[in-house]
């Protein structure tokens, strides 16, 4: 196949994140993970055609401006309350 475009590389990353965050055996009832009120099942599609920069800023906004050099999603307990980052 041709060399992957930057967009395709983003897709590859997001597809993997989507699987690891949203698929697999659910073994825990202690936490659920969500991104800015959007269920994770839609994570891949929602950010698929955006750039990593936008993805990162989107994620930062969802944590009320907490600075980070990494993608930070939001962790909630079952009652819907945010579990603040450490």
């Amino acid at each position, binding site marked *: 196949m041709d060399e992957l475009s930057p967009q395709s590389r983003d897709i590859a990353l997001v597809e*993997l994140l989507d699987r690891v965050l949203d698929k697999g055996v*659910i*073994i825990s009832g202690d936490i659920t993970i969500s991104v800015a009120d959007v269920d994770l099942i839609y994570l891949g599609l929602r950010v698929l055609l955006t750039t990593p920069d936008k993805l990162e800023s989107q994620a930062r906004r969802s944590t009320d401006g907490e600075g980070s050099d*990494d993608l930070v999603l939001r962790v909630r307990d079952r009652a819907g309350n945010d579990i603040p980052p450490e």
Partner: protein
Amino acid sequence: MIWYYVYAIVQGTISLPNDLRGIANEPLSLLTSRGMSAVVGAAVQEPPEPRAALVLAHHRLVSKISECGATLPVQFGSTVRSLERLEHIFNEQYETLYDDLIRLAGKVEFGVTVLWKQSTDDAGGQASVKPAASGAEYMRRRLTEYQREKRLRTKAEAVQESLAAEVSKLAAELEEQVLPREEMPLRASYLVEAKDTDEFRRRIEQFSERNGELEVVLVGPWPPYSFVTSRRDDIAGMFGAKNR
């Protein structure tokens, strides 16, 4: 509080590589019950933040574990407060977990995402945002939009059929979304025998070469994240977790 982070469930007991550590560099151990084992990171202080780097570290670790034998990947961030609780889950869900281990043994997951290389005449052509001047114009616009969406879906279904003809014989199971976005005619996950990995790649490559107007993104092989059944309906339900 001590949390136990669960990475994977494996058949029987396995020998973990000595240098294998958890995402917080914690030592790993096996909790074995009734012919299955959970690979657990002990003494994790809190559930981890879902940072991309940690998520990828989780994936790398699960991939390493799956090299040791039949493995069910566990969703990122799965923690339990006690090993007794984990054992309880094992006992409650034994049959589902065990069936999954048997069904998914020796198989891997591939993801295939297909995009139009250039916007087709029908993709991205959203209806005008200007208010319609009359009821007739509104209806005309609705009809145009309906016809555009129908053409796009027909094209996407042709892509899906064409790809299925290429790879469906190699897929033990598959999940497909036809036209999940206008730019994307197809998004699919395939469960493939590990021994067929090279052949699957070759067929996707052939499909890509034959369809120059499409950009085909193949990712994997991964542990079979998308094909475990021991998830929402059973285990999540046990805890009354939100149904997603």
